[in-house]
């Protein structure tokens, strides 16, 4: 474990919206009780003005940094960015990350037990939107005694939550860092989500979401993950990583078994994923992403930022074709028309959409400077 690691960390849980105080949802239904899994790194200062909320992407969780036990092989999902001396420097900032509402890694979601029936919600779980995820995070932030966040930051679906935070709670966000994201999914991105959902829902084991305690829809979820994974890479990065190389053989097998390395890699990614992710959560989260559209919700993108007070650092990646640069530019244009301070940069990379997890050197330089200058200037 290196010096810049936050070390051994523990996931905590916060439960609220106990009936009859259920949380109202965008779809019109209510939900309660709600538990959010979260982790924190660093210390909240006396002025309570150094809190940074990290918001995760589709398959992320509350475990953003550090290790859960000394023999843990893998650190949290954004460990390279969070720790003493890292971009989100835990000597200066109090970093919070929570698993989204509807997720499956400690927060209330379709795989949680419905206290009214004593059985998992399954698809009776209400459709929760990104606005609902953010509303739930807000309750957690209130609970932690934080009136204003120094920063909200995240990539991909995390970036959508950053934008939703600014739209829903403009007074609470001083610095916003939406990375590799969009204010609404393109038809192409919705299409990939839809195929992923079809893969899960057509798995005979899915059984209308009632698979808990039985055989899991592993095949469907695995295929959904493979499709997703293709959209996170780029033509170039796949070429560099796999090319047309064969897996454990020197010639074609001339049968339908796996020949190419890229096939075997995707199968591995898919299989690995089903061990840690719930198929129903995948359906709910991708649906929430598809519904997300700030222009539709607020009348225009500029309106979404009407009351915003934050300074923005908007970052896109040159080879990201899932949420291409033009979508970040749309956000920048709206912010600029609102006369909000905004830094926009497109990082040149072959890593595709996944670059937000990989290009940590450029991200570290941008984010650490943005945070330290942004913190010293009074809003």
């Amino acid at each position, binding site marked *: 474990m290196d010096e810049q690691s936050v070390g051994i960390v523990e996931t905590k849980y916060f439960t609220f919206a106990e009936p009859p105080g259920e949380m109202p949802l965008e779809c019109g239904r209510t939900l309660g009780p709600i538990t959010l899994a979260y982790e924190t790194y660093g210390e909240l200062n006396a002025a309570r003005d150094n809190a940074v909320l990290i918001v995760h992407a589709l398959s992320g969780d509350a475990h953003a940094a550090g290790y859960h036990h000394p023999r843990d092989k893998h650190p949290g999902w954004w460990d390279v960015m969070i720790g003493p001396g890292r971009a989100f420097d835990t000597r200066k900032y109090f970093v919070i990350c929570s698993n989204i509402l509807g997720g499956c890694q400690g927060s209330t979601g379709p795989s949680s037990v419905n206290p009214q029936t004593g059985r998992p919600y399954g698809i009776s779980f209400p459709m929760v939107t990104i606005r609902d995820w953010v509303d739930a995070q807000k309750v957690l932030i209130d609970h932690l005694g934080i009136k204003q966040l120094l920063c909200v930051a995240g990539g991909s679906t995390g970036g959508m939550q950053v934008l939703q935070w600014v739209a829903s709670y403009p007074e609470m966000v001083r610095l916003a860092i939406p990375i590799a994201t969009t204010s609404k999914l393109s038809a192409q991105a919705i299409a990939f989500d839809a195929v992923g959902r079809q893969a899960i829902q057509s798995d005979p084991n899915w059984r209308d979401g009632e698979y808990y305690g039985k055989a899991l829809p592993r095949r469907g979820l695995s295929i959904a993950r493979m499709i997703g994974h293709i959209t996170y890479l780029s033509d170039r990065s796949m070429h560099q990583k796999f090319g047309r190389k064969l897996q454990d053989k020197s010639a074609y097998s001339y049968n339908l078994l796996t020949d190419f390395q890229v096939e075997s890699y995707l199968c591995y990614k898919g299989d690995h994923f089903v061990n840690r992710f719930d198929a129903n959560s995948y359906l709910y989260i991708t649906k929430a992403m598809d519904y997300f559209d700030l222009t539709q919700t607020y009348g225009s993108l500029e309106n979404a930022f009407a009351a915003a007070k934050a300074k923005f650092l908007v970052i896109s990646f040159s080879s990201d074709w899932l949420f291409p640069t033009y979508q970040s530019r749309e956000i920048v244009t709206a912010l600029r*028309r609102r006369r909000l301070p905004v*830094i926009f940069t*497109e990082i040149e990379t072959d890593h595709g959409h996944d670059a937000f997890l990989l290009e940590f050197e450029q991200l570290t330089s*941008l984010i650490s400077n943005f945070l330290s200058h942004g913190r010293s*200037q009074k809003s």
Partner: protein
Amino acid sequence: MSLLTTEIRLEKTGDVVQLVPEHKLLIGLIEKGSHVLDLGCGEGDLLLALKVLKGVRAEGIELSEACIQACVAKGLFSVNQGDLDEGLADYPDKSVDYVISTNTIQVLHRPRVLIREMARVGKRCIVSFPNFAHWQVRLQLILRGRMPKTGKLPYEWHETLNIHLTTINDFRSFCHDAGLKILREIPFRTSASGKCTEVRLLPNLRADAAIFILEEAKSPAG
């Protein structure tokens, strides 16, 4: 850039900035507290100097990712990575006090479009460019029959980015044609030490560069 820059320490904050010779002239032209947009702002040195010395609201546009990183490191909060050849569509009419373009218009594919955009967005614009009619340039071409290389034009023909070079006289008539009112012309020559001196006599021959302050003409010609 092999162009001459000088390092200047801003006493107020201790920041050190690298300025090209005409930046000092230019800083003197900006009123305190103005809203400034610097096109091709590089690593943000001029913007930081203006912010510290003149308390301006500083915004910049820059093509290079590395330069944007340097701007963020300087504590600038409004810098947009973008291509000036694509115009200034994000900016409403007359939304900025000064739009500045230092030594940049000659590298653009469509300088006319951008200068018109500058005049639309800015209440005033400040444009500086190297003067291709400077005597050194003329002599090199006439006497040596070679592509000119000077302090302001230091590149070999095959590596220069300067595709739309102009002269002071050409720029003046361009402004007239493009519906721009010239508020002030500052032709200047640059000493080896980087000092700029305004040239009053025979400017198109003796000035190696010029600054023009422009605004949109009330009834644009053409």
